[in-house]
């Protein structure tokens, strides 16, 4: 390798006066502009969703549209999104409940117990799970998960209930395999990696001084985990769970493929239900009536509102849970 001779003129060259004076301001202006575009995008998104949905929202009323239980785009042109709102909230929260223990266990095992090669392998798989496209989960759901759940759980349970607890049958619904519970299972497997990855990072960030402090008190490994590591990492674990919840609320394709897409209130466990993202994806291309079209955009607006509320609540709680000054 030949080194270029140093050019004295390069060293001596001074930035121009205009550059010195304006450089900072131009830089600030660019950063400010780009940062403000986030504000514009968010507000604009909410506003235009409302605008698009306003025809139906005005007809049904702000709360009427939300709490109406009839979604009939064909005959009566009546639009109430409550079945979809409930479907979205029930599936997302249930998916969260199912996924957090698995994700947390994976995080604890890989961060604290597993030998390095095994931890690396599991972490790789967790990251891979997050990278698999939603529609691939959907195909797997249709061809593998739904038939498996039907044969292994729904049918036996349904038959058992029919004989021993007839009152239960009406809450179980049709055990076809494509319904709410299958949607919950597929959602929870899809959101595991988000909670797992954030929890793992949070556990790894617990200072060694904290662990040693607990070990020096005569704590066992599990006691160190319980008294020091998990409390210290709780902010990150919570953030991971909230990220998972956000993903679950907005997940569209895989859920639409297995949930059965019934436009009725989701009061049965196995029976068909639907979610807000699923109804948008499935009906938008079929909408002909203006009112139907507007109603679908209105669903988008309410989904936006739910995301806004969940996010605000999450960031408020996160601030309370976060281990503050990080001085320890």
């Amino acid at each position, binding site marked *: 390798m030949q080194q270029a001779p140093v050019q004295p003129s390069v060293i001596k060259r001074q930035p121009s006066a205009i550059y010195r004076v304006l450089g900072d301001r131009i830089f600030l202006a660019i950063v400010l502009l780009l940062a403000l575009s986030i504000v514009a995008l968010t507000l604009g998104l909410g506003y235009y969703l409302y605008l698009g949905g306003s025809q139906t929202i005005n007809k049904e009323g702000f709360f009427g549209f939300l709490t109406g239980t009839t979604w009939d785009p064909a005959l009566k042109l009546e639009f109430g999104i409550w079945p979809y709102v409930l479907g979205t909230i029930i599936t997302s929260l249930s998916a969260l409940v199912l996924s957090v223990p698995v994700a947390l266990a994976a995080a604890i095992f890989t961060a604290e117990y597993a030998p390095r090669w095994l931890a690396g392998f599991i972490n790789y798989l967790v990251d891979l799970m997050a990278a698999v496209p939603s529609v691939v989960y959907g195909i797997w759901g249709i061809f593998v998960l739904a038939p498996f759940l039907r044969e292994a759980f729904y049918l036996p349970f349904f038959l058992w209930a029919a004989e021993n607890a007839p009152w239960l049958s009406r809450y179980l619904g049709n055990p076809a395999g494509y319904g709410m519970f299958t949607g919950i299972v597929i959602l929870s497997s899809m959101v595991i990696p988000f909670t797992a990855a954030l929890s793992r990072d949070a556990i790894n960030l617990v200072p060694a001084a904290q662990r040693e*402090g607990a070990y020096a008190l*005569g704590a066992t490994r599990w006691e160190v985990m319980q008294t020091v590591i998990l409390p210290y990492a709780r902010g990150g674990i919570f953030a991971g769970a909230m990220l998972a919840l956000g993903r679950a609320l907005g997940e569209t394709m895989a859920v639409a493929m297995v949930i059965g897409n019934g436009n009725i209130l989701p009061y049965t466990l196995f029976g068909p239900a639907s979610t807000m993202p699923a109804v948008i994806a499935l009906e938008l291309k079929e909408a002909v009536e203006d009112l139907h079209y507007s109603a679908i955009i209105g669903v988008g607006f309410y989904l936006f509102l739910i995301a806004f509320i969940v996010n605000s609540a999450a960031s408020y709680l996160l601030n309370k849970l976060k281990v503050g000054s990080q001085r320890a």
Partner: protein
Amino acid sequence: MNEFRPVANPESGHTEVMTLDPSLKARIEARQVTVWYGQKAGVKDVDMPIYANKVTALIGPSGCGKTTFLRALNRMHDLTPTARVTGEVLLDGVNVYAAGVDPVEVRRKIGMVFQKPNPFPTLSIYGNVVAGLKLVGIRKKSLLDEAVERSLSQAALWDEVKDRLHAPSMSLSGGQQQRLCIARALAVEPEVLLMDEPTSALDPISTQSIEDLLTDLKKHVTIAIVTHNMQQAGRVSDFTGYFLNGDLVEFGPTNLLFTTPKDKRTEAYITGRFG
């Protein structure tokens, strides 16, 4: 246990015999302790007593192995996969590295205070002090209250915090946090308290309050303190061990070691010619 142990120095080949009071009882006795990091020894063949109800200071330049040796005493190296300890550490005559000895039990008897204050940030002042007691299953409020007052008083923190025991531990100043950590270690009534440069992150006033504390504390517990500050070793300790490059060069009563060191290297260090 009341006999003198000669301090062997494997490098220079000569043996220092200190004239000690024969009535002293060694709470801990290190015999040929070597700590391996992979193929490299952090400390080599250290023989050293920690006398009961005395303060023993471990001094020496950075990287000399004094902290490594201290952490060998309560089996903290067990937590480092690459570290391995050979030799014996006798606590009241029982080797803590013997098969069948539970390191958790060892650490309950030999408490530790670290370089940087490390209170548990999610717990209150009270919660920090009782953390160790809760681990051993003590739940009764009257017992916990009693232990909190006793330990915080021993750590000279009680008067400052008695009206806000349930305040977050992170609301305390650095010096108070370190005294809280001392109280936390004392709450489980250890026999020995190991202190790893406990004042190096503190200001002079907090440092003094902790040094003052040690004189009272040694009535209850045996103390071993690592310090890079020779004045501190002189002020607080009864015995001093000087470490260099992983060897214990010299061990003896602090006043003798500082006034009439037997080894040239000790003399060089304490007169400030290096380190």
